[in-house]
């Protein structure tokens, strides 16, 4: 096995081990906060997969994140004690009652025109499934249209950016069923197999740690397939790839969809950890922030982008809570971004790669071993 590969494996192993050892070093409050950052880490992976490997800069990843979040939040909202105690057969979200027209029946089916859409969300599994299905379907349709039309580069970014803002607008506007600007709050806890995921419990932290580990491993495996190599080839030269017989839009859409699924999954976890879903998830600034995390961590490195997201948020929390820096923290974070972009254009991940490559050169100054071996095989 090549040295670089060994180091890569070790890095993943260490990171995942650290995730599961963290609970030994802090209280529940701290763990809740870290769990939130782990969710951001998943978003970093999602961005790196499309941006680094496919060359698709999605400035609307918040759309998939927000969709995932809202789908589960709807289920959890119906499971909350307030929704269950409205004196009707079905649980009814409190905000629907506050805004109900006089005389409207207190029932989820018909308290307002759109409320029936909530009916299936009484089953928590439906919410969980939709949290993945909805982002996947949206990404699939969007990808098929964009990539079949051979739209690429900055135009994809503009379309995704516009779309997330559009959906945010619709979401806020559909106040009777989404609670508009206020979003969904006062949620119940996710319950799976008898385990209640209290956001301030170790169980929830482990759920996030396991989800992030799973995401990293799956994304890493995916990145090691031949399909990923072809995807990178497509990123470099679409036309060339077409002339080799590859159906380019299918490849792009496939990875776009995987990235959306990860973001939807992350959105659901975020709801479990923070107990709310809000239209701010689809703010432009949030989607752009995700891209910045990936840029700092290294867009062509899945683990790098993930660590970048976690690290920036930890620094941000640290700096913004230090009294002397309360006024200056945004400037400090901004400065970090500028310095990284100027001096480490490939981010932390790129830096790690460069170090490994240098180390490897010192080790074996002769021709690459693998090719040498391959030559002797045919000789």
């Amino acid at each position, binding site marked *: 096995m090549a040295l670089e590969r060994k180091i890569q494996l070790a890095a993943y192993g260490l990171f995942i081990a650290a995730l599961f050892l963290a609970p030994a070093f802090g209280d529940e409050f701290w763990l809740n906060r870290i769990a939130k950052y782990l969710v951001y880490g998943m978003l970093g992976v999602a961005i790196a997969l499309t941006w680094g490997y496919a060359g698709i800069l999605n400035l609307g990843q918040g759309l998939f994140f927000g969709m995932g979040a809202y789908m589960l939040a709807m289920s959890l909202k119906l499971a909350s004690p307030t929704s269950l105690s409205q004196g009707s057969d079905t649980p009814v979200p409190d905000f629907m009652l506050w805004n109900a027209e006089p005389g409207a029946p207190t029932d989820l089916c018909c308290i307002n025109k759109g409320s029936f859409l909530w009916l299936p969300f009484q089953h928590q599994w439906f919410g969980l499934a939709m949290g993945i299905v909805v982002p996947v379907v949206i990404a699939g349709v969007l990808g098929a249209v964009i990539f079949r039309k051979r739209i690429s580069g900055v135009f994809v970014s503009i379309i995704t950016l516009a779309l997330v803002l559009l959906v945010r607008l619709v979401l806020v506007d559909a106040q009777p069923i989404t609670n508009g600007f206020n979003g969904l709050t006062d949620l119940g806890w996710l319950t799976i197999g008898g385990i209640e995921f209290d956001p301030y419990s170790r169980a929830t932290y482990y759920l996030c740690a396991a989800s992030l580990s799973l995401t990293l491993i799956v994304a890493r495996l995916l990145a090691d397939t031949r399909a990923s190599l072809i995807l990178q080839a497509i990123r470099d030269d679409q*036309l060339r790839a077409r002339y080799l*017989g590859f159906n380019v839009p299918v490849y792009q859409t496939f990875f776009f969809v995987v990235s959306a699924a990860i973001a939807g999954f992350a959105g659901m976890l975020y709801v479990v950890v923070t107990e709310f879903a809000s239209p701010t998830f689809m703010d432009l600034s949030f989607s752009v922030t995700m891209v910045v995390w990936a840029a700092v961590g290294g867009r062509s490195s899945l683990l790098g982008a993930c660590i970048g997201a976690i690290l920036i948020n930890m620094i941000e929390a640290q700096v913004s809570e230090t009294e002397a820096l309360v006024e200056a923290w945004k400037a400090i974070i901004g400065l970090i971004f500028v310095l990284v972009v100027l001096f480490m254009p490939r981010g932390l991940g790129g830096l790690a790669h460069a170090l490994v490559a240098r180390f490897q050169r010192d080790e074996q100054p002769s021709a690459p071993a693998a090719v040498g071996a391959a030559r002797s095989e045919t000789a």
Partner: protein
Amino acid sequence: MNQALTLNGLSVAFGGFKAIKDVSLSVATGELRVLLGANGAGKTTLMDLVSGKIRSTEGSVRVFGQEITNWPEHRIARAGIGRKFQIPSVFRDLTVEQNIQVACCNKHPSVFANLRFGVSADRRRRIVEILELTGLVEVARKTAAFLSHGQTQWLELGMLMAQDPKVILLDEPTAGMTHAETSKTADIINRLKGRHTLLVVEHDMGFVREIAQHITVLHLGEVLAEGSVAEIENDARVRAAYLGSKGIS
């Protein structure tokens, strides 16, 4: 059917301007055909039509009897046509080896067929063989962006070998090359001969002599003449239109 590539009355118009007018051409299996013509004669446009980059307005293209007129590029590629561009086009951020590996994947080109790891021993051997044929063994681990111009051209030829199409279209494979590089390219192309059917656009007459069997001369989007190197050299119309009074120098 021993005709590998058949064009029948192929035409294309760009906003009223007919760039290709009623071109009929037939290349036998295993033949190497050179397309000759002055700038603007329509050589590259013809290749674009065959490979699906642009859509024809009239006429048909067949590969081994199969009609492929105006198919999308990737389906034409799957039908057995490979193309090398005039400006070398390789995957710049991948290594030389990876470039060839990607080209090797085209037997099963769908996403799901490629959700696998690594390459089979057979394919591995083929990749090494291609690296040797194209003289790229020493730079196999190098990122393609850092290759010299000549090496980039050879890499693209190597990718074509890996793709292993029945018909290969080469657009000026020696453009911008030194003498030494040109003769090495001629070697590579001569090795492709026989195994593949080739259609080559070329300006360098010395090079054409080295590789050509049959020549088709295009002039202003039409076929002007067709024949062996000697016949073309002595064709008065070709001289007037393209070669100049001195013939092939």
